[in-house]
């Protein structure tokens, strides 16, 4: 059974149908990309997986469990992490606090243990220290040490993208959804990102689904690609297959 399986997914917003019965399977350990023109429904699929939208019809099955229509935090608890197209960071928190929020599902302290600790040996304090250590390693991995204690709203765009990625990694997810990870980056940064995506898959043993416009990156990095157009699945296959598909060329890439 695939790690994530989407079956006949329909989504509509007040009469406007965004997804027309899309199905897809993602095997564990792969990098799976979704491409398609704007408004094709790529982000909508993400939103269905991570529980922001409730599909009108169809199923989302993750690790043999149905998560259709479950709230975001539920799927997060199941091990699905994501980044956002337009960066959704916690602007009034520092980088380290943002990353610590990624550890939220792995932490236990509640109101009372959190409010009353008076030394290192209290469980809340111990837990806090432990997770700070974990986060520290992610900071190292992404090379954002210099920004550890800065408010994220004051960071440059590229760094914020990284922090967001780091925050998703801190969740130690099984499945990572990347929504346009290189949007707004220059070629150099994009290339870095490419390496990182591969490293993340290998080092963290994560399955990655990403939505991306940069064809070069998509073709290079992905194991499998699905092309969408107006909510309809055009084709799914290896980069080569997709690159040469006439429908994809027509709808998306254009013929130069």
């Amino acid at each position: 059974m695939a790690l994530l399986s989407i079956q006949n997914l329909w989504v509509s917003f007040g009469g406007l149908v965004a997804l027309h019965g899309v199905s897809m399977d993602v095997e564990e350990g792969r990098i799976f990309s979704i491409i398609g023109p704007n408004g094709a429904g790529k982000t909508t699929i993400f939103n269905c997986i991570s529980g922001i939208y409730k599909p009108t019809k169809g199923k989302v099955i993750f690790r043999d469990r149905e998560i259709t229509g479950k709230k975001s935090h539920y799927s997060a608890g199941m091990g699905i992490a994501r980044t956002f197209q337009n960066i959704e960071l916690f602007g009034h928190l520092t980088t380290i606090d943002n990353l610590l929020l990624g550890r939220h599902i792995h932490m236990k302290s509640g109101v009372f243990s959190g409010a009353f600790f008076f030394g290192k040996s209290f469980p809340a304090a111990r837990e806090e220290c432990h997770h700070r250590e974990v986060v520290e390693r992610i900071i190292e991995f992404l090379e954002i040490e210099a920004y550890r204690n800065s408010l994220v709203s004051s960071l440059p765009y590229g760094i914020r993208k990284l922090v967001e990625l780091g925050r998703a990694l801190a969740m130690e997810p099984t499945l990572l959804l990347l929504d346009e990870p290189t949007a707004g980056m220059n070629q150099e940064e994009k290339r870095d990102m490419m390496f990182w995506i591969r490293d993340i898959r290998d080092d963290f043993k994560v399955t990655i689904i990403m939505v991306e416009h940069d064809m070069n990156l998509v073709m290079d990095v992905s194991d499998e690609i699905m092309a969408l157009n107006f909510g309809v699945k055009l084709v799914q296959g290896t980069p080569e297959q997709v690159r040469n598909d006439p429908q994809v060329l027509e709808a998306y890439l254009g013929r130069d």
Partner: protein
Amino acid sequence: MLELKNVEIYYGKIMVVRGLSLKVEEGEIRAILGANGAGKSTTLKTIMGYIEDQPEKGSIWFEEERIDGMKTEKIVPRGIAYVPEGREVFPELTVRENLMMGAYTRKDRDVDTDLVKVFDYFSVIKDRLKQLAGTLSGGEQQMLAIARALMSRPKLMILDEPSLGLSPLLVSEIFEIIRSINRAGTTILLVEQNARKALSIADHAFIMESGRIVLEGSPEKLSENEDVQEFYLGVRQETSVKGYQRYKRKKRWR
């Protein structure tokens, strides 16, 4: 037509643009290329009078008239139209109302002929006049934003990243339209990250990095530059990264 002389811009306390000078000649398409945070958008916003008390130094001239320090609502009637980054339409106004707002500063009543003219460029819009702009797709919104800017009959049109977030096919279409607008007599100043596309239609381009113009010239000249090839055009794309040795070794976690 438009000239920036040694402009310095601060954003809060941080200097974003350092001594920028550039010229846009009448009838041309000029493009500013550069990565995120290079100060391109800030420059445009400053030209449009968005940022109060800026530029800190230098001057901006439009048709022999100094326009820095002017309010936006004074600048627009002088013949500059601005298409902001990211499809900034009025989502809950109809397409028609959106277009009417484009003609806000005009005193004459001859708006309808312009509407017809706009439909020549953007046939999609014609059928959707009564639709709310927010219900348009991303590409249509971008077209509407450009159409709206045209409604003020600008002499100079400034576009901020018209290709942002659009599919390759749509990008081509929009750039085609920009070119035809230019041919009809409107001067164009374009800010782009998609260097390849921008260079394909521009008459002259600037490359901006951390608040300075580092290179300028004709597209041909720029395309030959090695740095531009590597960092802006991504020329080596045909060979895959898979075959490359990483030049940076990342630290491993675990």
